[in-house]
């Protein structure tokens, strides 16, 4: 499964993309990322109580915000592309 990192999150991952074996769902992916790239990154990805996707993080699965799918329980498969952003805006 393809992972893409953007904006200031590249400072944590030190890469733009990574290939991983698809975890069962978004929640498992977040745990994997925390383990892989450190607790500071994990703190950004998760809510402060560590129970959900953090409000400063946007996770797109094939372009769809996890919030419009099944949130942290959204299932993942090898064919998915997951894009991970800090909250950004502008215009």
């Amino acid at each position: 499964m393809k992972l893409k990192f953007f904006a200031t999150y590249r400072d944590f991952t030190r890469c733009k993309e990574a290939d991983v074996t698809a975890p069962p769902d978004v929640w498992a992916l977040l745990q994997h990322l925390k383990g892989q790239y450190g607790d500071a990154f994990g703190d950004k990805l998760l809510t402060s109580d560590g129970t959900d996707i953090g409000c400063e993080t946007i996770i797109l699965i094939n372009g769809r915000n996890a919030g419009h799918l099944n949130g942290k329980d959204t299932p993942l498969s090898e064919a998915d592309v997951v894009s991970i952003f800090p909250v950004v805006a502008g215009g």
Partner: protein
Amino acid sequence: MNAWVGTILRVDLASETITKEPLNLKDAHDYIGARGLGTKYFCDEVGPKVDALSPENKLIFMTGPLTGTGAASGGRYNVISKSPLTGTIGAANSGGYFAPELKYAGYDGIIFENASDTPVYLYINDDIVELRDASGLWGKTVYETTDLLKEENGESFKVSCIGPPGENGCLYSGVLNDKHRAAGRGGMGAVMGSKKLKAVTVRGTGSVSVARPEKFMEAIIDARAKLKAHPVGGAGLAALGTQVLVNIINESGALPTRNWRDGSIFDEADATGGESLADKYLVKNKGCFGCSIDCARVTVVPDGPFKSSGEGPEYEAGWSYGADCGVSDLAAICKASFLCNEYGMDPITLGATIACAMELAEMGAIPEEDIGFKLRFGDPHAIVHLTEAVGKNEGFGKILALGSYRLAEKYGHPELSMSVKKQEMPAYDGRAAQGMALEYATSNRGGCHVRGYMTSPELLGVPFKMDPLVTEGKAATLKIFQDLTALIDSAGICLFTTFGLGLPEIAAQYREAVGTDETDEEILFKGERVWNLEKHFNIAAGVEKDTLPPRLLREKLPSGPAAGRVAELGVMLAEYYELRGWDKDGVPTTEKDGATGIKYEAKVLCDV
């Protein structure tokens, strides 16, 4: 005082008479300031059928009550007139340092009437206000004009001016202040040029005071703290600027590509995004007056064919010259964007007009000899060359200077102009974000993203998430966003403060500055009043009905999360009109106006 300085300058360019008149405090109360108040003055004084480039049109510079105060990002003004591009009310908003200086000089706004025979500029040094000869400035770029006026009058003078495209009637030429800050959209520069008014330069040493100083300070401390703590309004925009949006909009399948022809995923988006800009060309970031967001980019392309420096590019320009023209060379995008500031042109419309020309050229609709070379999508040299051609009013640039609608119409394909009411839509595909489709269709100044930024909830999750693919709930949210935006624009603060602040913080700053006890809802309602007045003007002016280019309504997106979708405008529009209390054709009804207490005495209604 109540955040106003109390005086409007009225400048008759034909008779060269300058009068100082008291600010209309009743209108300032009802229409807030800047965008709303300027529009009210305009509608009272100018008929909606006026030819935008005739002397009978007026040009208004208007600040807001929060301009020049310590309010979060409170340094803005609006330039208001009838737009020569769209025929709608034109209100273009700009930051920088000019507007606060105007207030410190003692003026809340300036109304320019009629036209001069020869080039002039307006000199304001506190109480001294004079029209001066600008023959030596005519033909100069924005940068040159600004430098020359500072050289002549002193470094502390601020300058707002037009470049050659404004003089030459380019329909999307802007009014630029402090070199890089633009009242960019709708051709306010062409109106200024038609009056032979090259620039306004101002130095002010006075003060702006607020009605309740202690409470106002509490309100701004609260607002500034919340803005600073927000991931976007705080560190986010400072770090990567607005160009950071390229990737997330692209990954969401909403980045219009090659004149919206090839869907909304641009394979080379990352090369043009804010991350690449920061890696390659960003020198530092910068803030407008009184702003803590500091989104501006100071940028240098150090070498190569597109060696250049300036401020930007912002996201919309980065898109129009990037994905929309199929160009992935960030250096070329930077240079084209800088040229727009240097000459004083709206990069959204210009980039999108070039993209339209690229599509027309590829399909053989524009003869190659008209352009002078083989124009194709993806050519970095073409975007720079054609931007310069418009700036200098040369060759094919003369046709591009009229915008994509007139270009596409001339070559027999008006449907390929990606514009609403003849103004180009910016960088979000309404097929992939349905609320944005409704926003474009209903915007009172034609295709525009800053009249109700539905992208924010739909694609960015700020301040809450809305599913971009559904239509439910979009009309109601858009109405609130449009009214709130009208309030923000009229108050004289930056729309970006909504990346951290909501109505309570914005209303609190307004309340303590002007000394009112109105509720948040009553203050927001003034935004609705502004919106309805603009709509009344447009209807009286005979502006076409609210719709979208056929491409958005009929051509399905080929790929991405919104694959197979079109903009489902009809259903949202009906709901929107009902929520606004307008009839099924989108006309505000007198019943609604009466019921909500809006009473228009403006000339616009007398002419209907």
